[in-house]
Each structure stands twice: as C-alpha cells, then as structure tokens.
C-alpha cells in the first residue's frame, strides 16, 4: 500500500500540471489555484501518511521500493524508472511537499490577478512533481529526469513575465549555466554506467564501497560534483542565481531557496559513499562550500535589492551545507537543508509581501519604517532573520548551523573559523536589511493589506523557522537527536560533539553580528546611500564573475559565430561552381566563330596525336 502511495505522490501534481496546461488559460483563477495547490496539498497529505507509517513501522530493508517500468534495456545496460523511500528521501519529500504546499497557497494570494496564472500554477506543480521524481528516484538516470525537469521548470518560471526581455535573458542564463553542470553530471553518469553497467544507486554505492576508488571513480565523483555545483549555485557556477530573482517571488521562495537549489546537496548526500571514497572530491566540496559561503555573504552585505540579498544569502547558506558535506557531517548538511528551507522560504515570502505592498519596489533604501505599517510581516521577517542569523536557542538556524560548526571543527579548525566568520557576516547583512526596511523614516507609503492566503503560510513557516530546530539539539542543551537517528541507517552515527566553548562561540558570534548591524544601521544614523567604494561595487556585482565569463567565453564564441554566419564550408562548393563556369566561358572563347581557328584546333589535335604516337 505504501509502495503504491509513492508513485501517487508524484502522479498527483503531474496530472494537475497536465490539466492546467490543457486548460490553456481558459480557467478562472480560483479553480486553477485549487487544482494547483490542492494537488500539492494532497500529495503533502499522502506524504504525511506515508511518513507516519514509515516512522511507526519501518520497512524491513529500511526503505520502500517501487519499480514502475523498465525504461531502456539494451545489451550491456538497462535502467528502470524506480522510486525508493528511505529516510533521506523521506525528509526531502516532507520538505518539498510541505513547503511546496504552503508556497502554493501563498502564490494564490500573490498571483491571483495575473492573466497567466494557469501557466504559473502549471509550472509550479510540474516543478513539484519533477522535484519529487528527483528525490525518489533510485536510479541515477531517472533522477536525471527530475534533475533536468526542475531545471526547465525554473527556466519557465524565471521567465514567467516574458514580455520583459531581461527576465527572458535571466531565465536562459539560469538554464544554460545549470545545463553546463548537467552535462558534467551526464558525463559522470556515462562513466559510471560504463564502469558498472547500471545506474541503479544501491548497486553503484555497493561497488563504490567494495571496489577501491580508482581513477574512474575519482573522475566520476568530480563530474557529479560539477553537476551539484551548478545546480546549487556554488562557485564558480553561481552567477545565475541572483539574476534568477527576476521570477515571481513565490518561485524564488520555492525553487531558488527551499528546494531546487538544494538538489546538489541532496545528490552528494545520496551518493555519499562514492564521495567519501574519494578524499580529493571531499576536499573540493569543502573548499567550494567555504569559498561560496564567504563570497556570497560578502556580496549580500552590500546589496540594495532585497531579493538579491536573500539570493546571495541562499548561496552562502548552501555553502554551509557543502562545507558540512565536505567535512563528512552528512546529518548536519541535511538538517541545515531542512531548516534553511523553512526560514529562507519564510524570508522570501515576507519580502514578497512587502514588495507587493510597496508597488513592486525592491530597493531596500526606498522602503524603511515599515514595521508599524505591516507588523505581521515584520514579525515573520524577524523570525526568519533570527533563524538565518542563527540567534541562539530559540531559532532553528542556530541548531543546524551549530551542528555544521561542530562538523567543521572536527574536520579542521580553520574551516570552523571560516564558518564562524560567515555566521558573523550573515547576522550583519540580514539585520542590516531588517533595520533598513522596517525601521527609520518611511520612504514609500504601503498600500492594501496582506491577504489571509499569504498571511497563513507566513505564520506557519515562522513557527517552523523558530521551532523546527528542536528535532536535533546538542547534548549540552538537550539530548534530542530525532533527525540523526532517522538518518543514521544511511549516514552512520553522527559525530561526537566538540568542547562546549564551541557552542558559546557559535551562539555569541551571531549576537555580535546583530550588535554590529545595529551600530551601523540603527534608525538614527541610517545612511541613505549604499557604500560606493570599489570593493563594495565589486562585491555588489557578485565579484564580477559575469564579466569574466563574458569576456573569456561568451563574447568570443558568439562573435566568431556571427562572423561565420554564412558557413565557410559553403565557400568550397561555390568556388567549384565558379571554376566550372569559368571553364565553360573559356571553351566558349574557343568557339570564336572563325573557321581558321577551328581548323587550327583540328591541326593541333592531330599534331599532338602524332607526337603521342612518336613518343615511344
């Protein structure tokens, strides 16, 4: 029965998406939303049932399997469309469906007067379905379906308001950059398939566990890492995420904060034995995570667009997860993934609520003093910010970040220091944003009020963002280890905890950060102008990766293509034709019309023939 629920959870949003696309925009908003959100809610419900069943009576092998059909079966390779529910995918499933459902609700409030709402909900539900495929698949190739599926949905949704060319460009950029990673991932799959003859994840992991890591294993690990990096917007393929904010805010909340961007983390966690067997890859993951964490936090410090701030913060938070993965603290990574899904979605939706009410302005310097105007939103945003900053004890972010710091400490104190620095910066930039937006003098008069459909999800997520962390606590506070126990069959026992002063450091640094933010941007001395020195501009531009790629790759490629627009190979054939015509003209000249010339040709021919005869 449970194994049968598994495909149903996917099918539900899929069918809804099909229905919505079929309707071709002829359906009024309300039923559209009911179908969209309803289907996701339904699968959330089923997911909850499934989860409770799973937790109450864990299946014999610790996982549920549902093989749908055999996809390709040719000599030397076969692959199936097969789903598996194990603790990891269980967690992901709950996040995707739960947060997804809330965001769908919110989206109705946000989009209900948009003409293309059917397309919007169609893509959203399709995205949920693809994400679930990604999560459930027990075969890397069917996982790849979901992997690319979410990519295309993100393309469609970023470019949702397609009349603006900028949005279209942003969407294309997002898809293409991730596609580069996907190509790497595909190569990894090819390599693994050639090596193992199958892409069935358990089989692969078995091989990785038994066979010593050879060159091909290392290459495969790095190729997969490439895919993960692009999907999760890590250095050096992170450039697409800030632009992706061009999409409607619910999209940013669902795809570019809660779920899709964390797919890379999920992939690495899913294949952790493979990575664990390749130390070099682990180091690479760690370094990528740390670098992204710091760079993104740095950019977030100087952004002026509220959504871009959140985007950069997303990058840096995923950097945390990569750091944890690289450090081998798998549970920590997943834990942070979950909590991050809560509070980042919350932040985005709160930001969306603000944007909606200040006439779609996004520049924080044009807001300000909104705390009184929209207290509910303020509270929600505050909760989210606190969780993101990881204020001690009462926020989810604190516990997950704490766990990561512990892991980093075990891997290398230096990493720990870096992570701590990141935490400090995080606290600064998010509270900078909060102070500037909600305190001080008001610059834009908000209109209307945040509807219930938007308020309700905000409330739920706010609660989650605060309490969500209690599922896993350090022993020093309370010996609660629900998550790591749940995941231990996969990841083994969690690491032992470090000395207690780590905990102190981890809880004081964010507070310090908040303090600094208050000193700098408290209402009294709020400066109206963002910092304009070179470093700030560089950081605001995301450290100019875009320009770099433009100059190095895109521009030369496109220019050369333009130059060769009329295919150079074409010249060859034209040249041949020209020579033929020239020959024809020459023979025409031979046809001078003068009989003596003709006689001359005959004589010449005869003489040549005679010479031929005389030669031997």
């Amino acid at each position, binding site marked *: 029965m449970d194994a049968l629920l598994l495909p149903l959870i996917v099918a539900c949003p899929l069918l809804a998406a099909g229905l919505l696309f079929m309707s071709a925009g002829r359906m009024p908003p309300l039923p559209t939303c009911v179908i969209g959100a309803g289907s996701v809610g339904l699968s959330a419900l089923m997911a909850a049932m499934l989860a409770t069943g799973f937790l109450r009576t864990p299946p014999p092998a610790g996982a549920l399997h549902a093989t749908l059909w055999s996809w390709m079966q040719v000599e030397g390779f076969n692959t199936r469309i097969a789903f598996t529910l194990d603790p990891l995918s269980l967690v992901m499933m709950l996040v995707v469906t739960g947060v997804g459902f809330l965001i769908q609700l919110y989206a109705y409030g946000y989009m209900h007067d948009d003409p293309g709402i059917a397309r919007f909900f169609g893509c959203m539900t399709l995205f949920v379905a693809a994400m679930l495929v990604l999560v459930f698949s027990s075969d890397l190739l069917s996982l790849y379906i979901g992997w690319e599926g979410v990519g295309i949905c993100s393309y469609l949704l970023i470019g949702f308001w397609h009349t603006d060319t900028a949005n279209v460009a942003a969407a294309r950029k997002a898809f293409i950059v991730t596609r580069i990673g996907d190509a790497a991932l595909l190569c990894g799959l090819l390599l693994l398939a050639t090596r193992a003859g199958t892409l069935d994840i358990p089989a692969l992991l078995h091989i990785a566990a038994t066979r010593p890591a050879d060159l091909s294993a290392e290459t495969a690990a790095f190729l997969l890492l490439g895919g993960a990096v692009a999907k999760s917007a890590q250095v050096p393929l992170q450039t697409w995420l800030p632009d992706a904010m061009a999409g409607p805010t619910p999209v940013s909340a669902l795809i570019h904060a809660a779920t899709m961007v964390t797919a890379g983390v999920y992939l690495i966690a899913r294949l952790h034995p493979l990575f664990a067997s390749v130390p070099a890859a682990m180091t690479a993951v760690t370094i990528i995570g740390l670098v992204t964490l710091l760079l993104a936090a740095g950019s977030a410090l100087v952004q002026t667009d509220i959504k871009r701030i959140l985007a950069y913060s997303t990058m840096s938070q995923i950097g945390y997860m990569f750091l944890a993965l690289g450090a081998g603290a798998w549970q920590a990574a997943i834990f942070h993934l979950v909590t991050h899904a809560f509070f980042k979605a919350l932040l985005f939706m709160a930001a969306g609520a603000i944007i909606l009410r200040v006439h779609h302005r996004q520049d924080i310097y044009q807001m300000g003093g909104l705390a009184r105007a929209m207290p509910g939103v303020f509270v929600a945003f505050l909760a989210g910010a606190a969780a993101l900053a990881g204020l001690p004890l009462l926020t989810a972010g604190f516990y997950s970040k704490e766990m990561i710091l512990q892991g980093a400490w075990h891997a290398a104190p230096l990493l720990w220091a870096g992570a701590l620095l990141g935490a400090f910066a995080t606290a600064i930039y998010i509270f900078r944003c909060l102070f500037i937006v909600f305190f001080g003098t008001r610059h834009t008069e908000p209109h209307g009020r945040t509807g219930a459909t938007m308020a309700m999800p905000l409330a739920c997520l706010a609660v989650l963002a605060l309490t969500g962390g209690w599922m896993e606590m350090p022993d020093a506070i309370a010996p609660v280890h629900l998550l790591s126990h749940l995941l231990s069959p996969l990841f083994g026992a969690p690491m032992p905890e470090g000395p207690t002063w780590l905990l102190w450091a981890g809880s004081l640094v964010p507070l310090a950060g908040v303090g600094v933010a208050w000193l700098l941007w408290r209402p009294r001395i709020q400066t109206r102008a963002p910092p304009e020195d070179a470093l700030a501009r560089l950081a605001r531009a995301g450290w100019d990766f875009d320009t770099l790629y433009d100059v190095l790759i895109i521009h030369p490629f496109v220019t050369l293509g333009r130059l060769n627009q009329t295919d150079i190979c074409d010249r060859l054939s034209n040249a041949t034709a020209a020579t033929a015509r020239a020959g024809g003209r020459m023979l025409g000249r031979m*046809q*001078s*019309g*003068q009989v*003596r010339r003709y*006689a001359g040709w005959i*004589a010449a021919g005869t003489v040549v023939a005679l010479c031929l005869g005389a030669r031997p």
Partner: protein
Amino acid sequence: MNATSPTQALLLATILFTIGMLGVLARRNLLLMLMSIEIMLNAAALAFIAAGARWHAAQGQVMFLMILSLAAAEAAVGLAIILRLHAAGRPTLDADTGNRLKG
C-alpha cells in the same frame, strides 16, 4: 621505273599535305582555303598511288580516282555555297569577318 621509290613519293605527298594544311591555317580567303584543301586531298591521292606502287596493286589508283571525284564534288558544292554567300550580301571572302555563329 626506279627513278623514284615509293618512299620518296610518300615523302613528297607528306610535304604537299603539310603545305596544304598550312595553307588552310594561314589563308583568310575562302577560295584559297578551298584550294589548300584540294592540295591536301591530292597529297592523299598521291600517297595512295605511292602505296599502291609499293605493293604492286591497283587499289591505290582506284582510291585516287575516288578522291579525285570527291575533290571535284567538294569544289562544286563549295563554290556554290560561296556564291550564295555573295548573293546573301557578304562583302568579302574573308573567312575571319562577319561570323554570326560563335560563343
């Protein structure tokens, strides 16, 4: 009888032939071209005679007669056509000018 051997006769024929050919190539006057062709034909005829003499066979002379008749026929038709050209208003007998058929 052995004043001239067939080989010498052949040589003479060859010389005549070459002269005729050069005439055809060099002359621009249609009449003279025709005459050069006659020379060539006669050279061929002479060659046949010589060959016949070499093999002591009469076939050579037969060929000679044939060629003679051909030469006559050609001359006749050629002159007729030249006359018609003149009638058609071609000013000169210059073969190089006034050609409409070319290219």
